[in-house]
């Protein structure tokens, strides 16, 4: 098919889809409406389990099984990236030479690194109370480590980030989520049921039963997964070279 014919086909299909989408938008409940039956029930359930952040309650209590599916997607995608971006037989490692870093950049990066790391961990720890949680804090904590690359050089980053350790922790935290799920079964309730631990006092760090634990497991998993992903991409972009002489 020529490019022109393909463009016409896309425009034709796009026009049809646009008409259908517009028709659907006009029949949707109006934006900002007051009727949210599922939302109201989710809020009531979250308050009954003494979880202040309703979204954490939905993710790690009411829909904990779906979050496990999501975690498996994350784990499988990281596994796929590790397999796809491994060092092939016709490639070799060429460690980049240390480059000169401007002094203000170095100072700024090394100053913000601990602040960003602590912020990430704080966001994970307070997931059941305030906006945030394992997903957000994990990404922040993982990317903060890479300020080391800006502030120093690649060798320094590799010292604070042994990839094998992060790969193992990734797997361990994924299994921790499963173990917490099965603990519910052993305790005589259902898989991932939030009946194992006392619900605690509303709006304190240990409230919400099993929610903080699942949240922490997801936080560790996301942080390790992002570190491993970025490590594989950085290896490819910075270090791994193809053999030049065939």
């Amino acid at each position: 098919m020529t490019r022109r014919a393909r463009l016409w086909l896309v425009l034709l299909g796009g026009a049809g889809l646009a008409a259908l989408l517009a028709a659907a938008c006009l029949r949707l409940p109006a934006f900002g409406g007051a009727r949210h039956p599922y939302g109201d029930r989710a809020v009531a359930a979250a308050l009954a389990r003494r979880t202040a952040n309703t979204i954490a309650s939905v993710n790690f209590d009411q829909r904990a099984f779906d979050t496990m599916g999501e975690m498996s997607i994350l784990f499988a995608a990281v596994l796929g990236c590790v397999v796809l971006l491994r060092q092939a037989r016709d490639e070799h490692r060429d460690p980049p030479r240390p480059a000169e870093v401007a002094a203000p950049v170095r100072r700024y990066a090394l100053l913000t690194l601990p602040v960003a790391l602590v912020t990430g961990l704080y966001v994970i720890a307070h997931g059941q109370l305030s906006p945030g949680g394992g997903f957000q804090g994990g990404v922040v904590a993982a990317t903060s480590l890479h300020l080391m690359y800006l502030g120093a050089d690649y060798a320094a980053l590799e010292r604070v980030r042994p990839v094998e350790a992060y790969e193992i922790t990734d797997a361990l935290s994924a299994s921790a989520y499963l173990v917490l799920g099965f603990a519910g079964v052993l305790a005589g309730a259902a898989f991932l049921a939030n009946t194992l631990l006392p619900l605690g006092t509303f709006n304190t760090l240990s409230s919400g039963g099993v929610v903080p634990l699942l949240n922490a497991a997801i936080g560790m998993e996301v942080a390790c997964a992002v570190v491993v992903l970025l490590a594989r991409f950085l290896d490819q972009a910075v270090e791994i070279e193809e053999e030049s002489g065939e």
Partner: protein
Amino acid sequence: MHVLPYLVAAYVFLIGCYGLATSRNLIHAVGCLAVCQSATYVLLLAVGYRDGATAPVFSDIAPGSRPVVDPVVQALTLTDVVVGATVTALLLALTVQISKRHGTVDPDELRELRG
């Protein structure tokens, strides 16, 4: 105002699809897919919005004192964002492999290679 957010979501999705179909570079195509994904976030959150309501977080407001927006769609969107990022990473890893094996990231040239 009543349908504008939905229409913006539909527009973002369609423009992303257009970019995907006309892209000459697989990396650019992955970026367009990220644009398509952001349309779903806008749609989901638009469905859950409630006029004059606040965020469904009760650490600083008394429960029941104010109406809150729908937390279920927000949890769905949160899942969506993270899964979207991992899909992007996986597709980019595939692109790196394609560039290694075939020496190009132009989908049209790749088709010619297949014959």
